[in-house]
């Protein structure tokens, strides 16, 4: 039968795994702050989650890219950009953009909320499934930043003053913030609590 460091009356370091007596404040091996379980961890998760959700709204309403050519001026939102790519026949790339900037962020909001709530309702999903879900959220979250980089590259590349210019829209800022905030939310979550009884 596996026991946790907490059940053995000990504290494990989250960064390096070294085990300490409960009255030790800093890990003697790597120097990280030790806590058996962070009492405010869940509150921090919800705070970052909410902040991320709030800035994700303008990220979808406002334009991400402002394209100006001799004849026209177009503004495209995140979803609009993906649809446009699809219509040009680049289904694969459109899919990458759509997954990175819509599916992953929305999925992440749901997954983090679920993990934070299911600490009380653990019968909905086995511990192993929750563990895997968290691993996926942690691994995949940063990839949403793709769209921000695409805008940065396009804006720096397409600069032919009168003929064609691409400028970043305000959604680029709010989307970048949303990705950063949800990454913080995931990092504030203490995965050890999944296994606590």
């Amino acid at each position: 039968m596996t026991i946790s460091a907490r059940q053995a009356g000990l504290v494990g370091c989250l960064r390096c795994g070294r085990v300490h007596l409960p009255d030790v404040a800093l890990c003697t091996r790597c120097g990280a702050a030790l806590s058996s379980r962070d009492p405010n961890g869940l509150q921090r998760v919800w705070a970052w989650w909410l902040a991320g959700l709030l800035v994700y709204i303008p990220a979808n309403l406002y334009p991400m890219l402002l394209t100006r050519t001799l004849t026209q001026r177009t503004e495209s939102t995140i979803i609009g950009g993906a649809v446009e790519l699809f219509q040009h026949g680049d289904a694969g790339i459109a899919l990458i953009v759509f997954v990175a900037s819509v599916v992953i962020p929305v999925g992440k909001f749901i997954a983090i909320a679920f993990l934070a709530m299911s600490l009380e309702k653990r019968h909905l999903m086995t511990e192993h499934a929750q563990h895997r879900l968290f691993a996926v959220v942690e691994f995949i979250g940063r990839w949403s930043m793709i769209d921000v980089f695409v805008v940065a590259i396009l804006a720096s590349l397409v600069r032919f003053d009168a003929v064609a210019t691409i400028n970043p829209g305000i959604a680029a800022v709010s989307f970048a913030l949303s990705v950063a905030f949800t990454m913080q939310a995931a990092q504030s979550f203490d995965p050890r609590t999944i296994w606590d009884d």
Partner: protein
Amino acid sequence: MPPRAAESSFTAHAVPLAELRACPHCDALHRLPQVQPRERAVCDRCGSVLIAPRADAFTRIFALAATSLILMGAAVFMPFLDLSASGLHNRASVLDAALAFSQGAMVPLSVAVAALIVVIPALRLMLILYTLAPLVAGRPVLSRARQAFRLADRLKPWSMAEIFVIGVAVALVKVAGLAMVTPGPAFWAFCALVLVTVLQDSFMDKEQIWQAIAGAEPANDAAEGAQP
């Protein structure tokens, strides 16, 4: 070689604390197993890798990190992409891409992009070199090596060079209809950088490095670390 499950059934109090490890992902308590290079020990409960040492790991990581840093230098300052459309030319470096948001309200985003694709990856590489250089030479680690390696570990999710490379691929497709794009030397440097980073991560076993740091600490640091 199949991963070995670390031993987890024992009386915790009969084992010295230094020989115990708590899984950082699920807190399961294990007795640290003896593991040969290329073997791995995984958590009995959640399956996370606890220890996976590699032979000559420090020399290899050091060499790969130094290579990455040189590639990073090349990637930042050389031309990255060259765009030509109906007689007009524009070339952009990675720095231009990072500074694309440098007007008005977009400035913080410019700083953030520069940090994510250049500053943080480069800083991480330097911290790893700082930690490992004395270990490669078989000498005591430099002061604050623990802080340096801990910071390198913390910055890992924020180091986004590889995501930037995929972003470039997407951007190329987006402008393909509008103009001719030719990748410059910096583009290839960035691609090589990503491959070298993947290789470097495959040699990086944190448990092995923490053990080495703890075993090679200068006298006064070790005394300080021993205090509760």
